[in-house]
């Protein structure tokens, strides 16, 4: 067992050393393509060696399940009937991405209004109805107005020129 693991770790180290030797060369980068490719293969074989050791397979499984819980659930107990945290946050991440992407194309205040509205509509615990939607839109409008007053009027912030404000 120990000998097997040591051999495998040795193999990984060797492959890594070879890769380091082959990268960051001053000139003649193309000439290193084939040796580096071989080193990647070596690395892959060494990993297979590592994994084929039963203990390590279990270890990896533990790592994987920890990573899973870390990314998608809370470490510790969670309520299995609900969506995991990260899945719940996916719409938020998409909203943020679109917000930042479109902010200087469409307009900072317009996108802020839409983002505010989207977040409140997606994450409201109530069932979406036209009345709650209207309420959210009103609050979003007031909030964006206040933001406009503070930043553009009071602090003279120059919003980037875009389609709208």
């Amino acid at each position: 067992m120990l000998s097997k693991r040591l051999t495998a770790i040795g193999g990984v180290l060797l492959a890594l050393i070879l890769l380091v030797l082959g990268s960051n060369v001053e000139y003649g980068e193309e000439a290193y393509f084939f040796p580096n490719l071989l080193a990647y293969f070596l690395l892959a074989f060494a990993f297979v060696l590592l994994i084929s050791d039963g203990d390590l397979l279990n270890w990896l499984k533990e790592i994987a399940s920890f990573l899973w819980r870390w990314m998608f659930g809370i470490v510790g107990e969670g309520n299995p009937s609900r969506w995991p945290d990260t899945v719940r946050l996916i719409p938020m991440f998409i909203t943020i991405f679109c917000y930042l992407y479109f902010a200087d194309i469409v307009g900072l205040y317009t996108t802020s209004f839409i983002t505010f509205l989207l977040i409140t509509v997606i994450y409201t615990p109530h069932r979406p109805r036209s009345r709650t939607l209207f309420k959210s839109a009103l609050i979003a409008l007031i909030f964006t107005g206040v933001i406009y007053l503070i930043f553009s009027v009071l602090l003279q912030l120059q919003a980037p020129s875009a389609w709208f404000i």
Partner: protein
Amino acid sequence: MLEFLQYLPEVFTPWNFMILVLGTVGGLILGATPGLSPTMAVALLIPFTFHMEPATGLILLGAAYTSTVAGGAVSAILLSIPGAPANIATTLDGNPLAKQGKATSALHYCFISSFVGGVIGVFVLIFFTPTLSEWALGFGPSHLFWVAILGVTVIGTLGSGSVVKGLFSGFVGLWISTIGYDPVLGVERFNYSEHLGGGINIIAALVGLFAIPQVLSMLTPQMMPGGVQKFAMETQSVMTSVKETLQRWKALVVGSFIGVLVGLIPGAGGQIAGLVAYDQTKKLSRNKEMFGKGEPAGVIAAESANNAMVGPSLVPLLTLSVPGSPTAAVLLGGLLIHGLFPGPALFTEHAPVVWTFINSLLVGQLLMCVFGIMIARYSRFVMDIPEFYMAAAITVLAVFGTFSVQNSFSDVFVMMTLGVVMYFASKIGFSPSPVVLGIILGPIAESNFLQGQMIAEVGEGSFTYFFGGPLNIVLVGVVAMSIVYSAYSELKQKKQQRTAQQNDADYRAEQEGV
């Protein structure tokens, strides 16, 4: 000496006083907004002072400086999002206090200790300016390097959990600070994307690291360590708060003293005043284990320090035109626009303007305390806002706050990226404060080390340069003491735990024996 009293009535002319009140209330609200730091508030207000009388303009800037520093504590306590780098230390105990249902008293402690610290700071400015400004000039690269190292020794104790995790995240912060263009070496480092060209802006990092994880955890109902938690706000009479604050006079004294000292040192970045004061108070306190879990002394030390810094940071500015903090550096521009050239002549040639300004700082401290306590009464309404509205509002505010620092979307991208990464890191027990402290200290430590090294090479040699001279020896001594004391108390705590476990085990063994 008492010349300042002569100009006190100037502050109370209707127009000046109105500007002072407006500046204070506005500053408190702006300061509580994540991303609007004192430096930025002053910078953004300078154009307004353009058309005002010099004294009135300076009153506005001074009021904004004083009250944004204190206002930043409101969001630090209620939401665990510091309004400015100076308020990081306030989150450490302020937010746990709020979660225990003592938000009102935490806010009271904060404004009362800000007032005490602030007044002490302004008195230092009034009475000791000529003496201390010469002393402040003596701080060279070697001394600033040691001050930064003193800051690094604080890092380990900031994380709520393990020291190693705190140090690890602190050093990640130090590494982050090396991104971008370095004016001392003249090179660009880790410039992988054009968004990183200007380096990581400290405000962008602060907002991202603190606000975004809070937003994300608001949207996920499951609790994470340090996450958002609804709490009710109690009612507490102001008198009780005053009494309780004054009972912790040791924290007040330590906080104000360190705030004054850090504020005086040009280039140390007043932002670390609160953290250093917090750390020292913790070390001197008898119940260390309460810190980080809602110890009022922590809030008092941090807040008295960062307001005590305001006055002294103007000491080297007004007499030598050397600013003691980043905000004071911006204030310099505000002075120059009105043709007020800092220097020894300032106090003779423009005495009415300067003394009115300094007096307004004094009166501003009182107004800040009064209005702050009034705002504390109404902040319960903030806590009644449903989470999803809160999350949406903080997201938009974070974007605006970050964008307005340098009119740069790159900063906004950096802020969001750091924030999302921090969210995942906080789920496994890392906290944002050491990272931000690392980002603040990195440039101070590095550029002063390099400058010192360059000077030492052609002068007396590195060892004598960095370790010679009384000031260096004192600073090295303080750093060494700080490290030794941390290690000692860590060991003592471990030993206590072990004996406790031992006792426990003995007890159990006895029980089983019986």
